[in-house]
């Protein structure tokens, strides 16, 4: 395996939830056809608003839920069923950090228990003293010192930031190659977010972990990530190097997302309300046809309503392609083709009506 091959890859992964209404059955398309690759030593951010399916991706990658369709590949190998030795091995390589540090630690167990369990589950057999020493080393690695004191504490004695560090230490205990961080700082006080983010960045860049950073905050993604993927209504709409995506957003949704974040440098009236005036995020049990953003898109064209746009390249750099799934960026001929196709598709219908 080459070093620049992805460690963990999702290929066309979809996750649908069945919903039962009275007398009606439906499906919520939480995630549709998402392809994502995580690389060693790189931080990949998935950005999107609430309900866009970004946490679902993390849960599918952590194998807490099975994908409805699509495939996960670890080190290039397709992963098997979630049981047995192979599944354990997967969990030993892919670990998750949960969003809410107040919910992700068991209130009755000590910090030591939380970190020692994964050590005992995944590591080689060790004596009690060795496990204890490793727990202390892990606590020091996430800057919880004096480690001896923290090991004895229970979650309710810790602050949100300290709990999140315990959570990170627990994930690191299995020596994973991939770390999935589902909004790791959104429940933390603003003043301590930077510390946790810097810790994660150190783990990603210095220790060579592949890190997935899920967030709704595109500004932190720019600060923190190497690559940014923007998600809307269950689909990825734009992706590429963090600088390119945040500085020259190609997809109208990304532009609105960036505009909606307050920025002291930007002059004039803040116009974050534009997307809201164009309506709410769509109901994913009945997603819009074509491009899912078209009902809210200020630049929507007829073709957007008809066909879902594929990925179009809009530039590159930093070894990664910058792409957007938007008809605005279709090469001329393809745009025409799509429109012709659309006309053909409509033709039989119109004749049929006559």
């Amino acid at each position: 395996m080459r070093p620049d091959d992805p460690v963990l890859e999702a290929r066309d992964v979809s996750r649908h939830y069945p919903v039962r209404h009275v007398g009606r059955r439906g499906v919520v398309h939480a995630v549709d056809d998402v392809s994502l690759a995580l690389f060693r030593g790189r931080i990949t951010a998935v950005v999107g608003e609430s309900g866009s399916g970004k946490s679902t991706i993390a849960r599918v990658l952590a194998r807490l839920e099975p994908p409805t369709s699509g495939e996960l590949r670890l080190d290039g190998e397709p992963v098997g069923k979630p049981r047995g030795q192979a599944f354990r091995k997967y969990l030993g390589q892919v670990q998750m950090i949960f969003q809410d540090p107040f919910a992700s630690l068991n209130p009755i167990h000590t910090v030591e228990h939380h970190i020692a369990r994964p050590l005992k589950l995944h590591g080689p057999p060790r004596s009690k003293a060795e496990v204890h020493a490793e727990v202390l080393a892990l606590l020091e690695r996430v800057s919880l010192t004096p480690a001896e004191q923290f090991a004895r504490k229970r979650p309710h004695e810790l602050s949100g930031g300290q709990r999140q560090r315990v959570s990170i230490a627990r994930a690191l205990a299995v020596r994973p190659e991939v770390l999935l961080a589902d909004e790791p700082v959104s429940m933390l006080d603003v003043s301590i977010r930077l510390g946790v983010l810097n810790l994660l960045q150190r783990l990603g860049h210095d220790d060579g972990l592949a890190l997935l950073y899920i967030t709704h905050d595109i500004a932190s993604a720019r600060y923190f990530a190497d690559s940014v993927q923007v998600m809307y209504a269950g689909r990825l709409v734009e992706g590429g190097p963090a600088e390119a995506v945040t500085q020259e957003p190609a997809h109208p949704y990304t532009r609105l997302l960036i505009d909606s974040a307050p920025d002291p440098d930007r002059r004039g009236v803040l116009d974050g309300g534009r997307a809201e005036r164009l309506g709410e995020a769509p109901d994913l049990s009945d997603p819009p046809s074509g491009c899912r953003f078209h009902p809210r898109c200020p630049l929507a064209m007829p073709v957007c309503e008809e066909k879902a746009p594929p990925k179009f390249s809009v530039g590159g750099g930093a070894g990664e392609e910058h792409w957007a799934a938007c008809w605005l960026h279709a090469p001329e001929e393809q745009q025409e083709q799509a429109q012709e196709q659309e006309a053909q598709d409509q033709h039989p219908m119109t004749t049929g009506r006559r």
Partner: protein
Amino acid sequence: MAATATIVTAETAPAPAKARRGIPLLRSGKALTGVVIFGIFILLAVIGPWIAPDDPSQTGGPVLQSPSGAHLLGTTQSGQDVLSQVLTGARTSMLVGVVAATLATALAVLIGVTAGYVGGWTDDILSMLTNIFLVIPALPLTIVLTGYLEGGGWFPIAVVISVTGWAFGARLQRAQTLSLRNRDYIKAARAVGERPWRIVTVELVPNLGAIIISGFLFTFIFAILTEASLSFLGLGSMTTWSWGTTLYWAQNSSAFTTGAWWWYVPPGLCIALVGASLSLINFGADELMNPRLAPVAKRNRKARRAQRRQAAAAGAAGKEATP
């Protein structure tokens, strides 16, 4: 101005260190009272039959005598010593309580947690079973079942009581398990690779502690009352003495109408006291598990006291200043 000062004092007044020391459960006055009373009855259950002055079945003494030096709690119509009956009966009643509560709680946890955690058709079947046992009237079923097990002493009765008494607890455990199983820390345990069995026993069940304890205490009361009811109706074991048996004979001999209060009040009071002590322990445990219940009342009391003291001090200072 003065009001602000008062509030600030009340809030910043340090809580006395005394309140933080000791076994947590015993910090609450209610729980302490309950534990002391319950402890006395446990002691009686252990040593009662040994310290009983007479054989409780021994007839031939003075008949229907009110309490005296020779018979501290008087005698029955057939000349048996009531104190001996109450002391000997303590062991049976408490044993039925302990055994029935333990068995019923174990059943409730087993069925409730399994239903809640496994879900699917397992949950459907176990929930249906629980609901059936919930709607069956407990006492008639108990009477029918004890009829089958005639003459077996106290143990079959305890088993029957636990079989009829587990369903309510199982429903509680199931509901709480449903709420806990989707907590992030359970998901995190799964994401780390814990096996389901260990997740349930190590991560989940300890968090059910509060309702398991309260379920145990309630089943304990329920078992003692049911055993007393059965014996009172003459359906209990007639070979062993329990508080209910004494009550049965008292009722049979119209102790009420003849005014022989020393015959029925002691066993009745024992049953009431055990029930009350368990309820008190439960209140205390409740306050412990849900700190919002207790300390607020205490804090308010403390704040009011501080306010009063300050007002008094201010008043005194004012009086001194005027002349």
